[in-house]
């Protein structure tokens, strides 16, 4: 019997997601698994580079949304990708790779959050987002006034997201940043779809209340 390493989701847990047609990345992951099983690690690494490139942008968005720190997000994403390759032989080819990877990434983020809270307990507080550049989520052709308003709005949204409880925040992030369906999120988090919907519903209610109050 194979044991699923800590931080990884067992392939048996995500069985319900097999109905969907396999994505390009799922097929690629299956190919990498076969290469590793065949002992061709060099070729597997090369193919894995492609998979990383496909998933990287989405991964950093999720991790940054979750951790709100670029260095931590960087580290979490790197850890997740390395862990996925190390345990690629436990990947089930008939399941969406994105769900499996998301679960591993979320666990890596949770581990980092725990580590960060332990670290902050023993260190002097830094100014928040000391490495962060000002967020400019708006088009460059906007006027300075419009850009300022958009930046303020972005700051409000970030602050509102920050107030969400952990599970609501995770569900909201996966649904609206990672653009996953509630079914995929339920598989990634190992909870029922009804639970995901409840968390998402509450999160949206809360965000709406906060943002409308500020508007």
């Amino acid at each position, binding site marked *: 019997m194979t044991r699923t390493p800590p931080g990884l989701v067992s392939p048996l847990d995500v069985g319900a997601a097999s109905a969907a047609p396999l994505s390009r990345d799922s097929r690629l992951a299956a190919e990498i698994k076969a290469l590793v099983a065949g002992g061709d*690690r060099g070729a597997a*690494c090369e193919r*894995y*580079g492609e998979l*990383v*490139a496909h998933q*990287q*942008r989405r991964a*950093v*968005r999720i991790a*940054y*949304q979750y951790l709100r720190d*670029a260095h931590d*997000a*960087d580290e979490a*994403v*790197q850890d997740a*990708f*390395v862990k996925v*390759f*190390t345990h690629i032989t436990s990947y089930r080819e008939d399941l969406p790779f994105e769900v499996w990877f998301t679960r591993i990434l979320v666990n890596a983020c949770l581990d980092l959050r725990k580590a960060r809270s332990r670290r902050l307990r023993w260190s002097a507080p830094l100014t928040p987002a000391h490495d*962060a*550049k000002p*967020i*400019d*989520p*708006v088009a460059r052709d906007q006027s300075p006034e419009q850009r300022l308003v958009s930046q303020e*709005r*972005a700051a409000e*949204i*970030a602050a509102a*997201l920050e107030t969400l409880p952990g599970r609501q925040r995770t569900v909201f*992030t996966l*649904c*609206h*940043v990672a*653009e996953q369906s*509630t079914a995929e999120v339920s598989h990634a988090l190992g909870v029922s779809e009804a639970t995901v*919907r409840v968390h*998402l*519903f509450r999160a*949206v*209610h809360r*965000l*709406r209340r906060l*943002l409308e109050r500020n508007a």
Partner: protein
Amino acid sequence: MTPHHLSDDRLVEVSLFYGVSASEQRHLESCPECAARRVRLREMLDDMSASSEAAADAQFPASRLARQHARILAQLQHDGRPARIIAFPAGHAQEPLVSRTHPSRRWIAAAAAAGLVVGVLAGRLGYDHSLLRPTAGRVVATRAAEPVEIRAADGAPGLRAVSATISDEEFLSQLEFASDGLAAAALQPLDELTPLPWEVR
């Protein structure tokens, strides 16, 4: 709000999970207020997604993603490689020490070291010997200090105080000189009342 309007909860539900029913759709088409609420909610959700993505993208430009990609692959290649085993230098201590210096040079070094030791010892002994022998130089060495004259309050010449560093002979002679001075006259009655040491039994 009339019962036909969609509640806030229902509006969130239809925006997030389910499509609207036929009756709700009819209501949304006929009720500008509910339609506007639905649009606002949709905009808020889109706004949050766009804002979150933009915040992450600002932190992770393409160059940073490329560096991260390279790091991940480098780590995978490093992890896959078996660890290098460096041979422990066993038996190295048992090997005979082979000196690369010429024997005559070693003798010169040894003689120089011995000479240094003898010189240090001799110097030390000479110094100790000189300490045991009292010399005039040692007594006179403190002569630099000049006596300081202490004047009385009425302007009369006072006692000449001596520095603590002067020799015994100088000190006694200065005492004699002081006792002969005018200032000592005031002490004469006291001196007469005080018994001398040899009178005390």
